């Protein structure tokens, strides 16, 4: 037996054995904690209720609303076309397909901000991009969009424009719920799930 072959065999076994004893490494699909904190600080992760309303009215195809409250609350009331992913099941494979869809902006919302923020931090840690939080949540949605309050007389023109928009939006969302039955909103969810593997398909 040639010594060189013995050497090669031992080398190969050591290489393969090395794989077994290598210390566990953090998964590359998760982002570095420092980057996570940095992303958390950025105000750009919030969208306002006005922006959401605008996207809904314009039927922005990239909009993906995600309701992170429990299913019971979601059944009572939810924004049009919102998908329900309760916070505690956000990591379950049934739902993770809805996150990180190419070209989609996922916007989390809950009653206020906290649940959405928690969902956001966990999703961000998993390195899912293009996720946002609807600032103020549904409480703010009702306050600004459904029941907008007129600005004081002294307010700037912009604010009046905004009020006009909100009044219109209010009618759009509440009025539309009468002409087009709201219960349909769940069945309208036609967001395509992310393909399991991003890798190039097809072998031979």
């Amino acid at each position, binding site marked *: 037996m040639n010594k060189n*072959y013995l050497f090669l*065999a031992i080398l*190969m*076994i050591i*290489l*393969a*054995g090395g*794989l*077994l004893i*290598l210390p566990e*490494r953090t998964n*590359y*699909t998760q982002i570095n904690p420092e980057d996570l904190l940095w992303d958390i600080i950025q105000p750009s992760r919030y969208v306002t209720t006005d922006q959401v309303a605008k996207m809904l009215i314009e039927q922005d195809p990239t909009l993906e609303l995600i309701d992170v409250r429990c299913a019971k609350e979601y059944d009572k009331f939810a924004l049009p076309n919102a998908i329900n992913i309760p916070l505690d099941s956000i990591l379950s494979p049934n739902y993770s397909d809805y996150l990180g869809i190419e070209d989609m902006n996922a916007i989390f919302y809950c009653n206020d901000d906290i649940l959405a923020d928690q969902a956001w931090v966990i999703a961000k840690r998993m390195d899912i991009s293009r996720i946002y939080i609807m600032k103020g949540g549904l409480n703010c949605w009702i306050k600004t969009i459904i029941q907008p309050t007129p600005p004081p007389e002294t307010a700037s023109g912009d604010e009046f424009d905004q009020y006009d928009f909100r009044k219109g939006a209010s009618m759009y969302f509440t009025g539309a719920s009468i002409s087009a039955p709201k219960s349909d909103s769940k069945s309208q969810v036609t967001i395509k799930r992310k393909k*399991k*593997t*991003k*890798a*190039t*398909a097809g*072998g031979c």
Partner: protein
Amino acid sequence: MGPLIPQGIITGQWDFVIALLIGTAFGFLLESSGFSSSRNIAGVFYGYNFVVLRVFFTAMIVAMVGLLYFNYLGWIELDMVFVLPTYLAPMILGGFIMGLGFVIGGFCPGTSYTACAIGKLDGFAFLGGFIIGVFIFAEAFPLFENFYYSGYMGNITIGEVFSVSNELVTFIFVIMAIVAFYVTWLIEKKVRKNRTESKFE
């Protein structure tokens, strides 16, 4: 970092140039290892020449170990590497038919290209048969469409099936390969004693 093309690091027409280069290297290695001769290849079934097993298993374990190390080092993202999807029954049948074709024809498609390239008519015959075979399959496809898609298990890895880590799978493969190299070396020595010729051009 890698894989480069799925991550869009290399784009445009360059990937076809790369395909051509990789193909050339592949053909070169197949031919220079002795795969352009069907009698060399068939030796693996009769014990007089285990070149196929040696090249095949060495390539496999080197690539496997390399892939896992590269993944560990962050040079390649294993999640983005294409894992052949598993269709249980069709793949078993496919392996069955190919095994039969292998022992009768003595080539596989890749090696038949190189056999053609150096002017072997049996290589051309195999390739011709291969083309006919694929054509027959495609024409008859509606007959067994359901079977073709049956037993789908997704892009599942060996480790996931046996619920062990892929590192362990690789380690077992390496050990098995080395044992196989040693055993086939012994067999080959024995068989070659009774033969005048064991390697062919």
